[in-house]
């Protein structure tokens, strides 16, 4: 098969990104324009502001990516785009731009599910082998996905309420340490000890997660200390909170691996950048003879490179779309 170059666009949240990926595994050029500094002022992503910035920046990001790749549109074989799930106004900008490029240059259009993108981010670092279990942890998602073979997804479990990244953000806000919460809390936790007792959420036999109870427990604890005018040790709270998060995630993940006799797992999504979580999972996997891998840190957070990687395998499966493709704020992977 001849080499295939895919130009991919991702705009599902607050990053406007364009990438060119060769054969689903080689990052030829990636441009990511993050809006994080803008949303930090508001303590979280404001959807309408995110959409406004995507519109403003979309063509500049595409142009920059093409320049960086030193390729021309003639050398691009297909256009891939995240069409869901995500913030609808944000997704729409990427989808309309991708559809227009596909139409203008007469290229195939490949619709990519955002989570499929996060999973295939791994293929940019190491060729994925099947069957495998993918743990997807990000600001908007916490899912366990079983892949029997290439581009085949079966969701085993997911969060029943808040996503893991969302929970970190809320906890960070309650203890007043800023946004985004993940990196801040992970760093603080390195300096703390497990002092506070927090409940292990959804301690059952399912592969599902729940974080709203844990979040409430942290909020209640903080209020309780505040009322008693006792100072809370923030580093210790961060450590106590993160320990529980890692315990629940490793427990459910290990159960899914063992029950289904899966020997390989990959970690994906923005929260995969969390060092303690990665190390916690790696340790459990080593103890149980399971191969565990995760993408390079730069491919953990939202980027179009992972969409280009996933798009290649989607295209091999014959998945394409027409110019009536619409963005979907919620979209099932399977």
């Amino acid at each position, binding site marked *: 098969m001849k080499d295939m170059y895919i130009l991919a666009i991702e705009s599902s949240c607050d990053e406007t990104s364009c990438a060119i990926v060769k054969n689903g595994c080689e990052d030829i050029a990636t441009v990511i324009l993050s809006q994080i500094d803008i949303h930090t*002022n*508001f303590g979280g992503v*404001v959807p*309408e*502001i995110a*959409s*406004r910035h*995507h*519109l*403003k920046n*979309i*063509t*500049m990001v*595409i*142009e920059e990516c093409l320049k960086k790749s030193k390729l021309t*549109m003639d050398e691009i074989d297909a256009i891939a785009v995240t069409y869901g799930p995500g913030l*609808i*106004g944000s997704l*729409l*900008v990427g*989808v*309309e*731009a991708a*559809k*227009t*490029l596909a*139409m*203008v*240059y007469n290229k195939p259009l490949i619709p990519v599910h955002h989570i499929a993108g996060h999973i295939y981010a791994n293929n940019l670092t190491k060729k994925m082998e099947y069957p495998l279990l993918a743990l997807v942890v990000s600001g908007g998602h916490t899912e366990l996905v079983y892949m029997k073979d290439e581009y085949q997804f079966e969701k085993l479990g997911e969060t029943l309420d808040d996503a893991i990244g969302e929970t970190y953000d809320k906890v960070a806000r309650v203890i007043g340490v800023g946004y985004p919460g993940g990196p801040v809390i992970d760093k603080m936790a390195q300096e703390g000890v497990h002092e506070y007792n927090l409940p292990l959420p959804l301690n059952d036999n399912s592969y599902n997660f729940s974080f709203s109870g844990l979040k409430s427990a942290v909020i209640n604890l903080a209020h309780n200390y505040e009322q008693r005018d006792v100072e809370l040790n923030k580093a210790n709270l961060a450590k106590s909170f993160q320990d529980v998060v890692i315990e629940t995630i490793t427990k459910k993940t290990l159960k899914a691996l063992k029950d289904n006799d899966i020997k390989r797992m990959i970690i994906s999504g923005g929260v995969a950048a969390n060092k303690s979580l990665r190390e916690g999972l790696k340790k459990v996997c080593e103890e149980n003879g399971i191969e565990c891998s995760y993408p390079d840190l730069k491919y953990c957070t939202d980027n179009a490179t992972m969409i280009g990687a996933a798009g290649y395998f989607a295209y091999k499966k014959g998945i394409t779309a*027409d*110019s*009536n493709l*619409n*963005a979907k704020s919620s979209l099932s992977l399977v």
Partner: protein
Amino acid sequence: MKILYLDTTSSFLYTAILEDNKVIAEVKEELGNNLSDYTLPRIEGMMKIKNISVDEIGKIIAVNGPGSFTGIRIGLTIAKTMAWAKNIPIIPISSLEAMALSSDANYDYVVPAIDARRNYLYASIYDAKNNNFVMNEQYINADTLNIALENLSKDSITFISNDKINVNYDVQPYDPKIEKIVGIVKDREPVNPHSIDANYLKMTEAEEKQKEELN
């Protein structure tokens, strides 16, 4: 030269291809929440019927708002991406100006207005005799606008709107006269496609709230 006109700033899609200043293909269709599904297919459809390729489009005129935030972004993303990709000169125009220019009603003053909710409008006041705006477009309380108009003779004023708006004047529905609009704006200075942006006329609620808190 062929010109593409595109307006997705309301629940209607208004798009046309013009050749030598005449409309040769046109779509005026209420699409509501389905603008994303159908806007690009309709443009493709017009081109296919008239056997026109994108390379023949010599200019794009894109309506950039005010109106539905999402709708504005759908049309502008298509327009700016196409303009950037094919190096086509692009000219933005305000939806309120397009509305004012489309009026052939026999009134001295034309007030194009779009419902902005909570008794607010996006509106301007156009002097149809002198062909200029006597009130620039703005996000304005409907009562404030009614007061602003009090000094003018009531019979000399008409609103143009497709929305249910709370005003004391005649309201004519909006039906874009695309040939006329394009004829007037086509020789304006084109802008760099990268700089094409929405004319929202209104900050986001989060920004408004932050501004209030700062004051």
